[in-house]
């Protein structure tokens, strides 16, 4: 009985020795930290050009609610190749956004527009709530009007993704304003907290 136990003990030691040959120390570990998330936004023309949209309401229909479609300067709706390789229809503004971050579908990118300002001409002003848009290409931003908020949300999407829409801006023309050349600026903000 004693001999039998002893042999078994020896076998265990032999096994441990054999396994020990394949359990050598492991010394090198590469720890990969997270890279920065990335967002990119294009509104209108590329290369830093500020696109303009011009509205020319006719005196005869002023304040009637007859929509006045805007016209854009060149390249406001140019293609965003290769994923959006076709230019928007004439007088549309392209909005393109990309948001990347690890891990898939864990962060949400939000595009907002600040329309809290007014268009002004001398001492007169027109609120941005008198303007809206029709979405002519893309689905991420629905047709709507500006709310006058500094943080009106236009769309959200999850990482990592790239989206683009074409918008045709319009003047709602529900109020008669003093004549003049009114100008104002909208600011679009893309964030991915």
């Amino acid at each position, binding site marked *: 009985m004693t001999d039998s136990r002893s042999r078994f003990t020896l076998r265990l030691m032999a096994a441990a020795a054999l396994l020990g040959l*394949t359990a*050598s120390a492991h*010394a*090198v*570990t590469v*720890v*990969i930290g997270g*890279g920065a998330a990335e967002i990119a936004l294009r509104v209108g023309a590329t290369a830093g050009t500020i696109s303009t949209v011009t509205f020319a309401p006719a005196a005869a229909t002023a304040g009637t609610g007859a929509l006045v479609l805007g016209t854009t300067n060149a390249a406001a709706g140019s293609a965003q190749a290769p994923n959006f390789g076709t230019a928007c229809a004439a007088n549309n503004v392209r909005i393109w956004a990309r948001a990347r971050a690890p*891990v898939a579908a864990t962060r949400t990118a939000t595009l907002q527009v600040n329309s809290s300002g007014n268009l002004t001409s001398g001492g007169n002003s027109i609120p941005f709530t008198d303007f809206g848009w029709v979405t002519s290409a893309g689905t991420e931003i629905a047709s709507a009007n500006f709310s006058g908020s500094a943080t009106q949300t236009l769309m959200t999407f999850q990482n*990592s993704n790239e989206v683009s829409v074409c918008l045709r801006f319009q003047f709602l023309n529900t109020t008669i304003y003093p004549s003049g050349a009114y100008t104002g600026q909208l600011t679009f903000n893309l964030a991915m907290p």
Partner: protein
Amino acid sequence: MRALAFLLIIVASQGALSGEKLDDAGSPRSRVDTTVRWLHTNEGLTTPELINAMVATVPNLEFRLDTSRYVGKKARIYLVVPDFMPGLRSPSGLRVEWKTRGAFLAGSALPGTRALVYDGTIKLPSMHEALDLSIYLDARYFERGLRFEPRFEIDVLP
């Protein structure tokens, strides 16, 4: 009968291993920290693979392998990329490429595979090799703090 069963277990354990791990405890750096960056920054990212492609580089990662038990023997040494690693949600989310600064072979490997880096006679009791690693990641499956532990295995040839 009991002894026979015991021997079979030992044999099966050995057969499940691809090779013997080489001790790399003498390597100069036990931990190397790096950060990942986006591989493509242009706007032509047409597929999820392109938009999610990231890379982390580790230049001059030095390994000192204890080959004292194999001096004079013909052997093959492999770099092994583990199947699983903390911070990687899918084995398909990582690929490792390396260039070498010594006698080892350049190559690449996926998680759960190994690649030949040396084929010949072991001449020294310690082999010192430096690799330039490029670790390609798919951001969909990557979590920061990923821990990649490359190891080396040796097969002694008859």
